């Protein structure tokens, strides 16, 4: 109708495609460099830190997805993360399953558990949801210490998880050695970040964001607001489960500590540090957290700093570091400020 508007639209479209191709090329380059270069330039110790940083980052990615898309905060991510480790160990020792079979069984249990839990707690308010995830996490954490289950979980001592045979063609050493584990965790992080990005861009993501902003309006408009949020809850728990599986494969040990509130709040902090609104932010946050913990944690201040970081990042930097950097780049670039979802 209006020539000028059409021309502007055309211009925008043209300007949109080129950066997209560029972004893919850069991403591919970063991916390949990141997968193969670090073992040559970094020490074992640094790689070990980076491994644990990315593990935390993946967990943070799950927490951040639920937070930014559905407006729901989970304080029970660790219960699934650590719980998968226990299930993996038990499936191999008690039911003598193969490592791959044990991993699949553990993830199926997570799927069922999170579907049942989600079905119960998503019906409440977002604030009650946050309280209930904390309660559910503590429940799992207590369950491991029960005297009745001591024969299986060995109480506070934890379980050593060694596996024979192969897991996706990889042997136990591939996971335990920080250098050989790096390409595995790096590729997993990218794969999960991509999956999160795809879901974020999908119809499910749009419905989740709309529901987060005004649930009543969505219901009036004829949308089901319950099952999309349930699906999102199950999705993030499966991610947390995959992350827990990678963790137990890497460390070869699982204890009550990996189920506890501490790990959940660490993941929350990693998400807040990096910024919850992006797919890269939580991973960056996890890496920052791991290196910061190495600097300060030795003096027993990790938890104290975790608390401090929650307060500081919510009050002063709500977008996290990646969000703040993005805003900064856009501001000096003079471009339109993109709407943050």
């Amino acid at each position, binding site marked *: 109708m209006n020539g000028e508007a059409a021309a502007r639209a055309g211009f925008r479209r043209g300007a949109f495609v080129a950066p997209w191709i560029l972004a893919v090329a850069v991403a591919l380059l970063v991916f390949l460099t990141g997968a193969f270069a670090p073992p040559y330039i970094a020490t074992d110790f640094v790689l070990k830190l980076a491994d644990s940083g990315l593990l935390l980052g993946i967990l943070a990615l799950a927490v951040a997805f639920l937070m930014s898309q559905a407006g729901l905060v989970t304080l029970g991510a660790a219960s699934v993360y650590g719980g998968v480790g226990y299930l993996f160990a038990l499936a191999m020792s008690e039911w003598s399953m193969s490592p791959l079979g044990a991993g699949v069984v553990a993830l199926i249990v997570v799927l069922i558990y999170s579907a049942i839990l989600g079905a119960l707690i998503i019906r409440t308010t977002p604030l009650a949801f946050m*309280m209930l995830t904390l309660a*559910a996490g*503590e*429940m799992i954490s*207590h*369950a491991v210490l029960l005297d009745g289950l001591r024969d299986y979980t060995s109480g506070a001592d934890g379980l050593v998880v060694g596996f024979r045979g192969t897991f996706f063609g990889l042997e136990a050493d591939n996971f335990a050695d920080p250098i050989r584990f790096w390409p595995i965790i790096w590729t997993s992080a990218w794969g999960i970040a991509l999956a999160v990005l795809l879901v974020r861009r999908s119809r499910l993501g749009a419905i989740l964001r709309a529901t987060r902003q005004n649930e009543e309006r969505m219901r009036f408009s004829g949308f089901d607001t319950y099952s999309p949020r349930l699906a999102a809850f199950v999705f993030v728990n499966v991610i947390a489960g995959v992350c827990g599986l990678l963790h137990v494969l890497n460390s070869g040990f699982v204890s009550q500590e990996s189920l506890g509130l501490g790990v959940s709040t660490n993941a929350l902090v990693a998400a807040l540090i990096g910024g919850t609104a992006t797919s890269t932010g939580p991973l960056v946050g996890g890496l920052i957290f791991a290196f910061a913990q190495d600097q300060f944690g030795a003096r027993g201040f990790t938890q104290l700093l*975790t608390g401090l970081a929650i*307060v500081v990042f*919510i009050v002063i930097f709500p977008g996290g570091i990646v969000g703040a950097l993005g805003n900064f780049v856009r501001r000096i670039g003079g471009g339109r400020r993109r709407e943050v979802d």
Partner: protein
Amino acid sequence: MIALLIANSLALASLLIMMSSGLALIYGLRDVINFGHGALYMLGAYLGYSIAHATGFWVALVASPALLALVGAALEYLALRPLQRRSHIEVALVTLGLGIILGQALIFVYGGEARTVDAPPSLSGSITVLGLTYPVYRIFLIGMGLGSCGLLALWLNFTTSGLHVRAVSQDPSVARMMGINADRLSLLVTSLSAAFAGVAGVLAGPYLSVDPGMDVTMIVSCLIIVVIGGAGSIAGTIVAALLFGFVQVAGSVFLPDFAALAPYALLMLVLLVAPRGIGRGRAPA
């Protein structure tokens, strides 16, 4: 047997009532759940421990809540009020962060081992009531719990400020239109519930123990109670605390191996039947 069970669950519920009614009051006024409430309780307990050892239990029972009221006022001025335009989830996360900081600071000062506080001589020993021999301290605890329930009910139902608190809890915007100063009320309620956390902390000393994990244990119990009670409903919260106390005590008697899971089973059951809790809380904004 049954009488002992009921008495024990009343004793536990007394502490829980003091804690969770404070949480529910803050929620009613500010729509925020204070995740740092467990840390306030822990602060009350450690302050009580220090004061009780320096002077005596009765001084601690007065001084620790008084100090906690000041901490509550600081919480109101430094966190809840500046952040009242932010989303409630964010404010709740900030209280979680503050709670972690406070808990860790206490561990830093007092160290990691558990401390014990002795009941004062006048409250130690047991007496026999209606053929049941029962520790005096627990009877005192039940008295304090029921007493604070009664005072709370009197305050909410028969004073002007209580009326205002109920009005804001029912409908904040209408209450503001009628000229109620919600900020001033919130200061009162936050200090009051912090003081209650202080009382609970001091009372917990001789009954449970004073240890580094007490904040998380308590806040998890309180969150479950507030959800079961229907967020914001004081009456629902009190009933839920009684129910919670009973289930926990009964669980440890009848199913000692799985007692830790009993409260969660209760929670799941209530969520299944009544997702909004048993009380008539305000519809969420």
